[in-house]
């Protein structure tokens, strides 16, 4: 199963339509989608509007690979499971987001070899051909270091 997610709220018609239309030409196996408030109604895949976080995690774990918007939540979740991920960043010009932060997020993570990035349907088709041989570069974050900094601050609130 291939998991397509655009997050749980904002519409992303461009990506959902692009995947739906590529299912036949790219010979994709079963696709399951979380489409949020997207207006486009997929013809060739099963879809839901919203998944709970726990259901989302289950579907993600079962997926062969993932296609999504450039939400950092999805990127982090996919990377933590070592799932190959193709990302299409939302663009402000198409009314898909309030700014272009997803474009810079996608470029940062793409340049580091963590994800494949497609900016339009044509590039998505290219990425779908590449994804079978793509192994995401594992990511090492530093949550403990951040927590340590927060702890140092919180300790100043406690009387010695």
């Amino acid at each position, binding site marked *: 199963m291939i998991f397509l997610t655009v997050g749980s709220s904002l519409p992303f018609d461009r990506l959902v339509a692009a995947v739906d239309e590529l299912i036949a030409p790219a010979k994709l196996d079963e696709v399951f989608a979380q489409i949020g408030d997207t207006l486009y109604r997929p013809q060739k895949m099963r879809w839901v509007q919203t998944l709970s976080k726990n259901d989302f995690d289950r579907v993600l774990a079962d997926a062969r690979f993932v296609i999504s918007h450039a939400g950092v939540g999805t990127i982090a979740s996919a990377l933590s499971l070592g799932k190959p991920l193709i990302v299409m960043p939302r663009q402000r010009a198409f009314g898909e987001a309030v700014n272009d932060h997803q474009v810079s997020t996608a470029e940062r993570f793409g340049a580091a070899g963590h994800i494949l990035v497609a900016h339009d349907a044509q590039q998505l088709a290219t990425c779908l051909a590449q994804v079978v041989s793509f192994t995401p570069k594992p990511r090492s974050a530093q949550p*403990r270091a951040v927590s340590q900094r927060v702890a140092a601050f919180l300790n100043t609130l406690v009387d010695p």
Partner: protein
Amino acid sequence: MNADRPRRKPVIAVGASAGGHTNELLPLLEHTDLWPELPSFYVTTLDILAEKYAARGGRTYVIGECDRRKLLDIPKVIWRSLRCACRERPDAVVTTGSMPLALFCLWAKLLGAKIVWIDSIANTDGLSLSGRLVRSFADLCLTQWPQVAQRVRGVEYAGQLI
């Protein structure tokens, strides 16, 4: 503003909006063993996240979503976040954003809390809109990109959460 420091156990609130902000908060919560006290309660924006926090055993408040596109939802979020802040009176708030949590931080600050704002890793080149608002009154403001810390005064880089 309340200048007195808490005498005993500080009441620590942690919170994040649904989506990426939550994905960033959860790894931080894996390391609260370093903190002087564990979080007393959680603040999130959607019911679908509540189960995730409930599993951790703390009280959870759902304050709703709002952003630049959903201005009409702001009064609801203001009311819910204000009610939560008044009821709990936290000594500190630790959050990864976004706008609804910025509102919660504002009320908590006015009621005497210290604010720790960790801007989302999605903001690679500067602070988010909500981050820019909170920076003016936050007590500790962290970014997850070194280049942002270099560019924005009063903002520190301490690592990446995801």
